[in-house]
């Protein structure tokens, strides 16, 4: 630790906020780096979906499971992409935000020039970068396994994924802004596992027999259905998108009403 003085005038006040876009860029780049820094984050973001894809395709082939007449990789990849969107927009975002609250980061940034809208945009930016990495990795693995998506569907899938991101991010923030960090961690992981197993995200709803109609209201099933319709058939499935829009409105409403910053 040095004792020497710094030149007079160094600390002369010269306050001011950085330009809004620069603040958002800085925030997004920080969020991305931190999301990708930890092993467990990468596990939930990339490794689990890839295992689900490879395992699902191999199992379907071995056991001769019929997936509405589609090749297993074509039938499963849209659902795995939906799972990846869900894991980042809901689980990772909720857990990260919960601990940001706990560590007083949100409070501290609340006293910085970065407005809340900038904080939120930064988070969205971080999410989208991580999701882009997920899509590239999962897509590459799927292509290697012979995935042949509908070309128009690739374009249609984009708004579906964005709407799904909005729905899950709203729910994740509502969770993180109301519960303690540990509870958020537990609930976010539990919900992720329950939706993975029973939420018709990776497997189409038809695989769930009689529960199929009921499952349609879940955001996981809606996102899976929407991506399957786009990437398998090249169509825009309206009903699942309406379901996602309702969840997005609900999540945003809950988060903005109940989110506590500290």
């Amino acid at each position: 630790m040095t004792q020497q003085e710094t030149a007079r005038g160094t600390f002369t006040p010269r306050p001011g906020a950085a330009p809004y876009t620069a603040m958002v860029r800085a925030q997004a780049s920080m969020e991305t780096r931190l999301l990708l820094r930890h092993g467990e984050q990468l596990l939930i973001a990339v490794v689990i979906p890839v295992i689900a894809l490879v395992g699902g395709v191999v199992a379907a082939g071995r056991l001769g499971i019929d997936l509405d007449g589609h090749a297993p990789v074509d039938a499963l990849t849209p659902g795995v992409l939906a799972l990846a969107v869900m894991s980042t927009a809901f689980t990772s975002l909720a857990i990260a935000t919960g601990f940001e609250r706990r560590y007083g980061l949100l409070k501290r940034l609340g006293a910085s020039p970065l407005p809340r809208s900038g904080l939120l945009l930064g988070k969205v930016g971080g999410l989208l970068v991580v999701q882009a990495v997920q899509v590239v990795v999962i897509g590459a693995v799927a292509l290697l396994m012979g995935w042949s998506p509908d070309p128009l569907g690739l374009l249609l899938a984009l708004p579906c994924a964005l709407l799904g991101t909005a729905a899950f991010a709203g729910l994740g923030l509502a969770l993180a802004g109301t519960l303690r960090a540990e509870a958020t961690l537990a609930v976010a992981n539990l919900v992720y596992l329950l939706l993975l197993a029973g939420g018709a995200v990776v497997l189409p709803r038809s695989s769930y027999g009689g529960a199929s109609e009921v499952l349609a209201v879940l955001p996981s099933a809606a996102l899976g259905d929407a991506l399957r319709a786009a990437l398998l058939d090249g169509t825009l499935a309206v009903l699942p998108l309406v379901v996602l829009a309702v969840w997005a409105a609900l999540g945003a409403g809950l988060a903005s009403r109940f989110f506590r910053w500290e």
Partner: protein
Amino acid sequence: MPPTPSDAASAPAVRVQDLVMRYGDTVAADGLSLEVARGSITAVLGPNGAGKTTTLETCEGYRRPQGGSVRVLGLDPVRQRRELLPRIGVMLQGGGAWSGVRAVEMLRHVASLHAHPLPVGLLVERLGLDECGRTPYRRLSGGQQQRLGLAMAVVGRPELLFVDEPTAGMDPAVRRTTWDLLRELQHDGVTTVLTTHYMEEAERLADLVHLVDHGRVVASGSPLALTRGRGDATIRLVVTEPFPLGAPQSLATALGHGTEVTPVDERSLVVTGPADASTLAVVSAWCEDFGVVPESLTMGRMTLEDVFLAETGRPLAPTDGTIDGGRAA
């Protein structure tokens, strides 16, 4: 009525008037009023739970006053928060970073939110953060977290700095370095408001001290005015066994008018008044009469601690040595 520009320039940096803040049964501010002159280092000194942090966080715009008014740089910290925030630097009492972020990475991030930040390297060097620059926040020691918090508050070149218990958890050498930095900031025109429960910090650093207890300001002034203004000195007496019943009252009677006896706890008391040979003689005769054995007897001019005791009848800091343990979550 909104202040005119000329008013704003000469107005105090902070003006809190009759602030009332209650949480359930807890009264954090109970008609608290204080001012902070531009360019000063002003200390808000008081025990834990006196309402210091609540007052500071109201000035920072985190909390809306339930009663009274708060103006910071002439602005309403809640309604005009976006205008105010770039101009102030805030150091919270703890936390304020991602758990996995590296110390210097965090400082660089906060710097990037400002238009004309200080060079990050300068603060890293001045606050000794080079020793832990790549350490994740959650593995920093309490003192390192405090230093990073201070650096984050200063890096945006604010006009006005709010620091909440800036040196809690720091070792004495680092504490002195921190004081040096705050003084240099003052030379360059930065106004600082700090809360502390360290009497020494207020006495050495502050131009103006507000003594706060139970959500009210009980005395204000420069440390010199507060301690010398009374023209008194103090005698502190600690004895080996608890005082016999009625002994302190009897001492007060024996010393007579112009002298005050304040019991601190069951084994110590403070005598405030003219500290001369006759006072000492009365004290030692009283010791003999009641058979109490002094463990320590010190005499000197009043400290801020004595002023606090005289004003509130309570000690500023607990006597059981837990003074460093009081960092709230």
